[in-house]
């Protein structure tokens, strides 16, 4: 009895649903229950409720936030600070004579991470401007943290490293943004972002996939307001042009822009080179150059099921 009681003590806490002893119980952490998935019976009861203490509504700008817990921790990115700060006092007793508040000076929390937190804020601001999803922002934050901890790029401006991390994150997620697009939301020059990009790749010893023309088609075409047919045609043209090697040494962005120009000129929605150049960030002379290279074989480049508004021989020749 005495010897088996210890063994029993370990075996007992395994609660089971009385009707389905084999079923694995599902935990509902919000309510602190353990529920049987077969019949829905609430089997176990947990003492601690990890949900929030108070409900806060977004429209109420309550001066006092009754929550005693504070912000959600960001353990992956910060040093896991568990510091306590002294906030501004309320009520009359917190002010000494002359009207100064006692206990001024909220202790600076984790000064080593201050620069990193600043950078995260900057990253979120930049990503917000081009509507990037949360997963890219998270990836960027992780990259920045890795680079920052390595300290090999310590002398560079944090904003430059943040912009380069954003560029790399977009590439790694399979939705690359051009350097010019990142430039547009950052205060750093393209040259500096390019330099930091190469340095970060060397520091983290990673490499990124090469950009292709198709990565940018959907973004450029929707910004120009072109219908799906034209977008598909442009994607096909650009891919064919690269396969047939009509445009050696041209940046994929320029080839994509020229393909969009050709597709739009052959359809009902004609766009000028200037408009396309504006959206893609390429000069219109560059579009003209690439267009001249793909124009001679235009007939082969179009997809077979394309409906021409303007036939191939009537395409503008620049």
């Amino acid at each position, binding site marked *: 009895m005495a010897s088996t009681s210890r063994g029993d003590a370990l075996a007992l806490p395994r609660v089971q649903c009385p009707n389905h002893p084999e079923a694995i119980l599902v935990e509902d952490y919000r309510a602190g229950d353990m529920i049987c998935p077969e019949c829905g019976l609430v089997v176990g009861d947990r003492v601690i409720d990890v949900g929030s203490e108070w409900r806060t509504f977004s429209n109420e700008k309550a001066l006092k936030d009754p929550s005693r817990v504070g912000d959600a921790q960001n353990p992956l990115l910060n040093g896991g600070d568990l510091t306590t700060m002294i906030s501004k006092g309320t009520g009359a007793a917190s002010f000494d004579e002359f009207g100064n508040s006692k206990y001024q000076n909220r202790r600076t929390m984790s000064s080593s991470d201050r620069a990193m937190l600043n950078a995260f804020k900057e990253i979120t601001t930049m990503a917000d401007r081009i509507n990037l999803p949360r997963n890219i922002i998270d990836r960027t934050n992780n990259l920045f943290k890795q680079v920052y901890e390595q300290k090999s790029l310590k002398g560079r401006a944090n904003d430059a490293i943040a912009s380069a991390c954003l560029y790399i994150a977009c590439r790694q997620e399979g939705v690359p943004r051009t350097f010019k697009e990142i430039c547009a939301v950052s205060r750093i020059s393209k040259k500096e972002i*390019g330099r930091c990009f190469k340095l970060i790749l060397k520091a983290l010893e990673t*490499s990124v996939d*090469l950009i292709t023309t198709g990565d940018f088609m959907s973004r450029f075409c929707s910004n120009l307001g072109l219908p799906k047919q034209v977008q598909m045609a442009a994607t096909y043209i650009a891919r064919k042009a690269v396969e047939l090697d009509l445009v050696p*040494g*041209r*940046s*994929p962005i320029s080839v994509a822009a020229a393909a969009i120009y050709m597709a739009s000129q052959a359809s009902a929605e004609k766009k000028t080179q200037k408009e396309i150049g504006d959206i893609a960030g390429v000069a219109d002379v560059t579009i003209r150059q690439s267009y001249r290279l793909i124009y001679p074989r235009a007939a082969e480049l179009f997809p077979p099921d394309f409906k021409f508004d303007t036939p191939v021989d009537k395409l503008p020749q620049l």
Partner: protein
Amino acid sequence: MDSSNDEALDIIITNVVATFRVRCHLNLRTIALEGNNVIYKPEVGKVLMKLRKPKITASIWSSGKIICTGATSEDDAKLGARRLARVLQKMGFRVRFSAFKVVNVLAVCSMPFAIHLIDFTKNNRPIASYEPELHPAATYRIKHIKATIQVFSTGSITLTGPNVQNVATAVEQVYPLLFECRKPLRK
């Protein structure tokens, strides 16, 4: 690989950069006023002196350190450096030619075939890197001989390295890789 071809590849050295010291403090104002073919840059603190033969441009600093660029061969660089020291000696400085070192050699070479850069980069990750948005060439760095090769899609390559020997070795090493990714001759 090179020697198995019928045509030999011409490696043309376009630039040799060398540094040397003259072991004495130089008064840049004097050089700027009395010297022939000099450009004085007071905001940086150096004097540029251009020699006609061999065609060399030298940056002269007041500490006595001189950087010599524009030569077409290592011997030319040494000759030009000595000539430069002679010019400074004639101006009255007590020069002592020392610590001559070739720092960088830039060479160009042209392959008889065009190169498919995307294939080349894919085959040689991570040593090769290609960013079409930043630069139209793929960069290939050979770490153990400290040479950098820039490969263009037309088939021309530029090589930089610490001396001419390294550059020659680099061509030998990279030729088979480029040969794999060549574009078949058309038209």
